[in-house]
């Protein structure tokens, strides 16, 4: 089945939730379940499907890479308040937010807003 490779980066302290690694290279299927769950097998997806998008990626990261404290990453099926998502160095709001369809080679950054000074 077709898959794509992307680069995912965490910054502003979010990396602490992901084994303290800022940079992750992922290969994920290009067709995924519409309900965003990670299928057990790459071959068989029961039910409806969609092209892999940022919303799926957020769920995928939660289910496969997040080590602890889900509430510090997600809220209401999206990233929690205070996290900004960047798609190839552009504010994700300019790219359709969660509905942005991922392409091979995309660079997705999750950044937590800093308050310190």
């Amino acid at each position: 089945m077709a898959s794509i490779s992307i680069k995912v980066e965490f910054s502003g302290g979010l990396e602490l939730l992901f084994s303290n690694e800022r940079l992750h290279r992922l290969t994920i299927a290009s067709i995924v379940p519409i309900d965003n769950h990670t299928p057990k097998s790459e071959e068989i997806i029961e039910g409806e499907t969609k092209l892999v998008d940022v919303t799926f990626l957020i769920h995928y990261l939660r289910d496969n890479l997040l080590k602890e404290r889900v509430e510090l990453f997600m809220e209401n099926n999206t990233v929690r308040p205070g996290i900004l998502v960047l798609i190839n160095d552009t504010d994700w709001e300019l790219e359709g937010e969660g509905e942005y369809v991922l392409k091979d080679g995309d660079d997705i950054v999750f950044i937590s807003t800093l308050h310190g000074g």
Partner: protein
Amino acid sequence: MQALKRGNSRLAVDTITVAVTAENALSLLAPYDIILDCTDNAPTRYLLSDTAVTLGKPLVSGAAQKYDGQLCTYNLGPDGPCYRCLFPSPPPRESMASCEETGVLGAVTGIIGNMQALEAIKIITGLHDGKPSLLLFSALGSPCFRSIKLRSRKPSCTACGSKAYDRSIMLGTDYIQFCGGVHPDWEQQGLTIGDASHRINVNDFKGILNSGRPINLLDVRPKTEFGICQLPSSINIPLKQFLMNPKEYLPSDPQIETYIVCRLGNDSQIAAETLRRVEGVGAVKDIIGGLKAWSRHVDTAFPIY
């Protein structure tokens, strides 16, 4: 300020040493053309953004923590986004730590502060391109700098959106409550007396050290902090490691007392409480106020960090 005067003797500097609040923000900031946010907490960041929107002034906002920095100019020109356009609601309380808790590399604040000054100069002199962008700096990143193209003003934004903005809403906001309540004062919490028989103050502890009788002194701070400074004869067992198997760090002789110390006296209470639940332990006490209290009351040459 003297340094600034040395650079340019004709500079006029007004120093106002007043805490900015929802009540005084508008009148304090109204006379100026640009606002720079160099503060260190979420409530003040929201307050300054709302004030900048109300006054129609650009807000150059710099933030730094650990190895990372962020720089953004909000409310710039006719459609630059405000802080609330990007972050409509504040993050959960537990995800916000102050610099004092997490630390910040001095050079990082220097870089962000300089960039902030540069941004202000560009706006004043008309050299700014007026496009909303966010500059991210990460000392450990490669590249260190990245510039992010930002959304424009959000019509649905509660502060700067198309609905006429009501100044009274801002003045009525309790910014601290909005951001999840008062930041805990860890130093004060570390000083709370609690059960007196379980705790010891730094002066009494000094007496015990001077008496020369053998004790088991555990320091539960992270390894790097222990590397900065430590009490003589203390053994470093970082809290996380300690909690996994507290029994292991007890003295073989139950007559020997165990004392636990940390930076401010909070983690040491957790460690002592855990240890007391272990069967057959001798006396276990934690040091009230930790090394900060030690430095203040016993040995003023002891480093505070």
